[in-house]
């Protein structure tokens, strides 16, 4: 990152004058700015952040024509005026030295990272030509789209106009899918993103592996801090002493993979001791007797040998939850694809919340609402006879979104029909999907592989055509109209021009559609016209949003006692303690615990998670965030470290059960993790050479995740089932 030179400093210092001081200390002129800080002519632009998918609204500050900093928009209910560290460092995305500058077409074998720079016309012409050929031979459904985030909206539109139906994001089957399915099966509704968790008002907050504070989803962390300040009782179950655990009144170092046993035991205590919300369960519950009978044997004593948590602690924490109900929030988590029985675990969390009566209650789960902003009136999309490939014959009966790994499987097998083209937008599938070999195998079956990205990521390395996108600070995106505590509509708009020949996704999608002869699907000439049309339909205008960034709607009712209808979109119309639809599909109608499969002797279960300054594998080349954290570490329990003669900072390699050896990675020898597992932050250990300062730094958990267990309910890929040994002296 460049900095203002001292000399320039002195030159412009004269323009700044001191103003009123914070504590009445008087005013002074700044005779020597060089001593104190920067100055310059600044302007501000409201826009929205894209460092993660929370999409906080922000204000970008431009000083002397150069991007300076970005802060939270005080009008925004998501950021509440304060961005998270990634958002604050977001300007680094614009300055990233690894950025792609022009479209590229492959000149050698896939994976070789050798391309030629071409014009946009040539690149999109090539893509359109291949797409037409695939359509002619295999049908339009043979082109799939993987897209993560709001930026994928227009590519989805183009693909649907083309006749495509196979569109998926790793956010379902590799992340929050099991959680949403578990809650849908219980309450008839999922959790969504942003989560509908009322953390700020919780009197008791239970986190199961969820590491708020390291996971920086902004509003949640802010509310978490509020809950701490309000003296909420925090209970954390995690094999690792996370930041959240350090804030907890009760920390339960649960054995990895046994969370469901802990949940059942908690429910057993609530039911047998009669501590649950009887009126709530009676009024809204379905099948409680069957449920109670099923968990009658799941005592804390039963759970003790499974979880390693002493029965008294299980009882004490259960009573603590009951004491604060209904303002007891058992957080459903977000990345929940762990062991393959994840939807059932999520259902157990849902049921525990139901026993506590927290759903629809203050301090539990609120009912979110969104602003009414009509979509753009497009022509109807072509109908597909063949359906989607990701979940043939509803193999996973409760999958409520498309399954990425299902598309991957169909691409490999050619069944139920061949997939011959992949369009990949803003998701590094090599790092995001488990079993990298399968991803690469699938790619080898393709006739066309297109990646739209901002940096030459691993997945871009496998593309035939790489299309460089502008970063969020340089483009418009579709309107953000999300379900949240407060309804709002928010705009992302360009702050500075792109540094090269990068194009925004809407332009790419539109040009591609035109080249495919689908111009009729883009009746607007540019995105400003599109945005203004949608905003006017909602009673606002683009001009207004460009000024303020976000407009909020009226405060809606959020809880049952504020007038939210007590309706549950389940087959029984009630909260399903016993699920007949699960029973009908041959699954446990009340969650049942199965003991996790152990690893080979002497190995450690590989766990992974987040760091507050990075998002997935997307941000490691951002120079500001890279400066904050340039490589990950593997956490090793102190007794294990002592036995191996390891010290913090020593480099080691990890070898998994299938013989895959990681890049070298620093050990963090610490008391803060159980001895039966190791932990690392996801997203490091990049193998793409163009990722400056990130290539070869740290180790990649994704590389070591060669195995996964598929959730039979919804197709999620449980990935905490890999085991590693530690090899010192790397």
């Amino acid at each position, binding site marked *: 990152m460049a900095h203002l030179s001292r000399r320039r400093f002195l030159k412009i210092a004269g323009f700044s004058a001191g103003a009123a001081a914070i504590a009445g200390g008087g005013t002074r002129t700044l005779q020597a700015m060089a001593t104190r800080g920067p100055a310059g002519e600044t302007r501000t632009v409201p826009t929205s952040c894209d460092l993660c998918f929370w999409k906080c609204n922000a204000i970008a500050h431009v000083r002397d024509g150069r991007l300076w900093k970005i802060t939270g928009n005080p009008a925004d209910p998501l950021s509440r005026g304060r961005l998270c560290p990634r958002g604050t460092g977001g300007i680094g995305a614009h300055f990233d030295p690894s950025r792609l500058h022009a479209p590229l077409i492959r000149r050698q074998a896939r994976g070789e990272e050798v391309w030629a720079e071409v014009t946009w016309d040539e690149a999109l012409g090539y893509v359109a030509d291949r797409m037409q050929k695939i359509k002619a031979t295999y049908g339009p459904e043979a082109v799939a789209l993987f897209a993560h985030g709001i930026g994928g909206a227009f590519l989805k539109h183009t693909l649907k106009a083309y006749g495509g139906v196979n569109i998926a994001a790793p956010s379902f089957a590799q992340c929050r899918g099991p959680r949403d399915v578990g809650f849908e099966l219980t309450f008839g509704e999922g959790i969504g993103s942003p989560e509908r968790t009322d953390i700020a008002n919780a009197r008791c907050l239970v986190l199961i592996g969820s590491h708020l504070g390291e996971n920086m989803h902004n509003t949640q962390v802010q509310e978490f801090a509020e809950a701490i300040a309000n003296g909420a009782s925090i209970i954390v179950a995690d094999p690792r002493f996370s930041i959240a655990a350090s804030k907890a009144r009760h920390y339960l170092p649960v054995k990895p993979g046994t969370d469901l046993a802990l949940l059942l035991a908690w429910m057993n205590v609530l039911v047998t001791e009669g501590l649950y919300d009887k009126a709530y369960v009676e009024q809204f519950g379905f099948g409680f007797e069957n449920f109670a009978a099923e968990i009658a044997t799941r005592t804390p004593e039963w759970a003790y040998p499974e979880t390693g948590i002493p029965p008294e602690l299980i009882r004490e924490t259960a009573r603590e939850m009951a004491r604060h109900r209904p303002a007891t929030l058992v957080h459903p988590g977000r990345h929940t694809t762990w062991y393959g029985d994840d939807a059932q675990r999520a259902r157990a969390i849902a049921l525990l919340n139901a026993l506590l009566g927290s759903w629809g209650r203050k301090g539990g789960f609120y009912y979110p609402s969104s602003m009414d902003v009509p979509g753009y009136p497009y022509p109807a999309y072509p109908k597909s006879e063949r359906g989607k490939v990701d979940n043939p014959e509803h193999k996973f009966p409760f999958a409520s979104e498309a399954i990425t790994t299902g598309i991957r499987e169909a691409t490999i097998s050619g069944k139920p029909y061949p997939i011959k083209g992949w369009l990949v937008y803003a998701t590094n599938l090599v790092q995001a999907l488990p079993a990298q070999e399968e991803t690469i195998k699938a790619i080898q079956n393709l006739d066309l592989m297109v990646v739209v990205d901002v940096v030459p990521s691993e997945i871009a390395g496998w593309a035939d055509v790489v299309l460089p996108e502008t970063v969020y600070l340089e483009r418009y995106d579709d309107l953000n109209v999300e379900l949240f505590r407060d309804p709002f509509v928010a705009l992302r708009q360009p702050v500075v021009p792109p540094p090269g020949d990068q194009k925004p996704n809407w332009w790419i999608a539109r040009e591609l559609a035109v080249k495919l002869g689908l111009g009729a699907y883009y009746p607007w000439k540019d995105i400003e016209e599109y945005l203004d049309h949608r905003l006017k339909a909602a009673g606002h205008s683009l001009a207004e949003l460009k000024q303020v960034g976000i407009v909020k709607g009226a405060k809606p009712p959020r809880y049952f006692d504020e007038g939210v209808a007590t309706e549950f979109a389940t087959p029984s119309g009630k909260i399903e303690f016993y699920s007949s639809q699960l029973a009908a599909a041959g699954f446990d109608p009340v969650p049942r615990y199965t003991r996790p499969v152990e690893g080979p002797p002497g190995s450690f279960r590989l766990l992974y998670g987040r760091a507050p300054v990075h998002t997935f594998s997307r941000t490691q080349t951002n120079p500001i965030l890279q400066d*904050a954290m340039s490589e990950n570490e593997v956490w090793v329990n102190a007794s294990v470290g002592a036995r191996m003669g390891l010290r913090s900072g020593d480099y080691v390699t990890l070898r998994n059960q299938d013989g895959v050896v990681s890049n070298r990675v620093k050990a963090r020898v610490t008391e*803060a993790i159980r001895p039966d597992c190791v932990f690392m932050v996801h997203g490091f250990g990049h193998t793409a050479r163009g990722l400056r300062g990130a290539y070869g730094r740290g180790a990649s958990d994704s590389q070591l995740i060669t195995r996964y267990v598929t959730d039979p309910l919804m197709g999620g890929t449980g990935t905490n089932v890999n085991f590693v040994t530690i090899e010192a002296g790397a």
Partner: protein
Amino acid sequence: MLELVTTRHNPLVDPSLHIWGWEIPVYLFLGGWVAGCMVLSGWLMRRGRAPGQGSVAYVLPWVGIVLLSLGMGALFLDLEHKLYVWRMYLTLRPTSPMSWGGWILILVYPVMALAALAAIPRDLLSGWPSLAAFAERLRAGRSLRLLGTVSIASGIALGIYTGILLSSLGARPLWASAVLGPLFLVSGLSTGAAFAHMIARDPEEESSLLRADILFLVTELALIALFLIGHLTSGAQHAHAVALLLGGPYTAVFWVFVVGLGIVVPLVIQSLMASHRIGHTVIAPLLVMAGGLALRIVIVAAGQYSHWIVP
């Protein structure tokens, strides 16, 4: 178990302070050497050694000027903002040993220059009659004694300053010792004496300088002992810091190069020389001088490594 983690990663500061490489130890060593030259030169002057008799008293100021210039060169090389060095001489900061040092360095030049001037033979100054007359006045007995006194005083100030510079930086517990000033002074004296008796041509002068050096080395050993004992008895911070020299990463180099080869071995050799059991050898004074440099290197490095621990 106590585990400390920091995200700070500043160059020269992390993982432990290493702001000063070779330049500052060399500067401190040369400064001490110059201090020794000045004290010994002044001492000999006060003992009535007049110019033109082949006394080292009038060689040492010349050597001192050269060494001091080299030392200031090393200091200059260490500055990160070299072009601003003149800022040092716009102000005298009474609380800053660094500021005092800057001024002491400037002030010792004229003292040495006067002694050097007194040593210039008459005929070499024939072209500058007024300078020659001034040099003549300096050579008068009273002037020489006064010059000797001033030279001793400035030498002691310079020598102590090289230690105080470090000991005033209280954030580094190893340096936070009042013994460091006297220790660096005596080390400078021993370096100066070793150098002087090595180059002395007058046997009587050589012998008295040799005996002086033995005294300095013994004193230095005593001061090192005080330095270590002082730390060991001054609480956790100091005990932790001095452990670097007593069973830590700097222990071997300290005991082998500073104490062993730099003091004890030459002390034995020079004692044998003084009692005429062996002839004069340059090995002993060279070891003393190398030991003086090693002392500065070890103390500067270990001191930076020492830090304010959190119990």
